[in-house]
């Protein structure tokens, strides 16, 4: 029974109860609702615009370059007179940076999260968390410069037997990106571990487990979906990172083993960044290449982000 029905019923039976409806149509309220809904819809427009702006030139690109040549070609020289469009070298370059970044960020971020969630006294936690947030908000240009002018010479001093070449090194860029994503890994894992119910820990302690065993064998497995989400998010961030690799990894598209450390490489993001800065004419194949690489990058990160969102939702549902 709606409010109107109740009011009508009241008037029929002679009951003097007031009508529950608004006295006026409240057009202002409706207008505000529409305006706020439009604000929310801007995010949908943004996604649509991203997809359209990527797809249209990408279709043009594949009209000229066969799909298989792009995806499985091993020679990347789209700006040369005799252009080749095999995207593998810059994809592998991106994965190499991500590999080194995760090699740093997973152990450091995860152990930091264990410390923050299980060991740190409240006061230490209150100090460390904001500091990590500062690291997370560090401009990527600053991290790139730090990598190129500080980390690179430092590592050369420590490991003089590495085959150091020019100023650029994929490993140094990877380590710098890793340092940048440590706070992401630690904060998401920390959230997941703190969502584990205290009862699980108390049960383990009652059975005589030590603190380390509780952390490693009870809390860690219980929080695993959140931790995996943290790693996936971090990998996605590393894949999409531009300035650090642009500054510290160089611009040499070459197909190297993914564990290569000292060589200069180009990543997908760095290609977009360097190529789009030159004032290239619209409609040329080089211009369309930017969008084809962008589309590939977008699809890669989108898949990882969807996976991470799903995993985070799972640990939220399990324990809240």
């Amino acid at each position, binding site marked *: 029974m709606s409010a109107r029905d109740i009011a009508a019923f009241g008037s029929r039976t002679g009951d003097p109860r007031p009508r529950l409806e608004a006295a006026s149509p409240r057009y202002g309220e409706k207008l505000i609702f529409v305006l706020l809904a439009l604000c929310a819809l801007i995010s949908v427009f943004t996604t649509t615009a991203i997809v359209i702006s990527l797809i249209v030139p990408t279709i043009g690109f594949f009209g000229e370059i066969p799909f298989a040549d792009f995806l499985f070609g091993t020679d990347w020289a789209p700006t040369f007179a005799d252009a080749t469009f095999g995207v593998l070298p810059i994809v592998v370059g991106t994965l190499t940076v991500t590999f080194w970044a995760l090699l740093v960020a997973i152990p*450091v971020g995860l152990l930091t999260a264990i410390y923050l969630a299980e060991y740190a006294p409240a006061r230490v936690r209150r100090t460390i968390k904001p500091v990590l947030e500062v690291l997370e908000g560090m401009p990527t240009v600053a991290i790139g410069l730090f990598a190129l002018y500080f980390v690179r010479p430092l590592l050369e001093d420590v490991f003089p037997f590495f085959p150091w070449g020019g100023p650029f090194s994929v490993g140094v860029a990877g380590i710098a990106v890793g340092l940048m994503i440590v706070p992401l890994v630690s904060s998401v894992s920390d959230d997941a571990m703190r969502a584990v119910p205290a009862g699980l820990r108390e049960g383990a302690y009652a059975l005589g487990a030590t603190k380390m065993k509780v952390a490693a064998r009870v809390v860690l497995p219980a929080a695993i979906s959140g931790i995996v989400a943290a790693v996936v998010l971090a990998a996605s961030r590393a894949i999409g990172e*531009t300035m650090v690799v642009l500054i510290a990894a160089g611009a040499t598209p070459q197909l190297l083993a993914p564990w290569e450390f000292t060589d200069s490489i180009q990543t997908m993001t760095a290609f977009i960044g360097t190529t789009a800065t030159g004032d290239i004419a619209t409609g040329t194949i080089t211009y369309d290449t930017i969008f084809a690489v962008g589309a590939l990058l977008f699809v890669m990160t989108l898949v990882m982000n969807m996976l991470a969102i799903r995993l985070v939702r799972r640990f939220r549902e399990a324990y809240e």
Partner: protein
Amino acid sequence: VTGARDPLPGAARTRLAVAGARAGTASVLGRTNRADRVRELAFLTLLVIAVSFALAGLAALLVWALAKGAPRLNVDLFTQGPSSLSPETAGYRTAILGTVYVIGGVVLLIVPIGVGAALYLEEYADKSRWWNRFIELNVQNLAGVPSIVYGILGLAFIVRGPIDLGFVAAAGSATLALLVLPTVILASREAIRAVPPSIRDGALALGATQWQTIRRQVLPTAIPGILTGVILAVARAIGEAAPLLLVGAVTFVTVDPSFFEGGFTTLPVQIFNYSGRPQEVFQVLAAAGVIVMLVVLLAMNSFAIWLRNHYEKKLS
């Protein structure tokens, strides 16, 4: 012998029994294995090393920037434009002005749109409807899209394409605003959700309309949280360079920029520009720029953290 006096009075006997039992229990349960203790200590050491690694990385970055850039921390840094001929006196004048323009535009765009979207999602949206859940998922996804992809969007849609602004500061503002909008929306939603429902129920019960409730009760309570989110988003926008490379912030700008016409550049892009040169003097100049940027960002971050702590104490 019956009737012999008990050598201990009752109370003392009880005490002895309790002490004995306690010692017995402790010897069984309190016995920590030596290997366990060593492992425990080693693990804690490992944890502390990991935490120190992250903190040391940040500290090294700050110290490096300060040490390297200190010689160029002078007035020229703020009053002089860029120059590749006389890098000894070159500075960031046009870049700083460009940043002010671009970030001003970002703030004007993200505050109304971000708060509006958050209000819609928290106060109006019916979560059982698929389109509202879709909008939510969409915002979460946008938060993870690489910044350079926003640059592509800006190039195709804002600089050229339907909006067609050209390579100007306004295009940079719009691009960065879209980039940080998800951050503002997510943070504002948290802040709005933290407002106790009883406040809303009270206002509605007194006859306030939904918008009156939001404007007079919900928003004032949520303002500190929203402000924290906006500050963090703006801080991110200030340090962002990648998307701006695509919307034209790369030209060597020697005249003061304006919002809707002429080339522009920003602080991080100018720093990147200097960093690509091999001469030592440009490295120093780049490091000095990093110091300027970090001072601004650290001030904003500290303010946001202070605001949040202050606010958390008040609500609880």
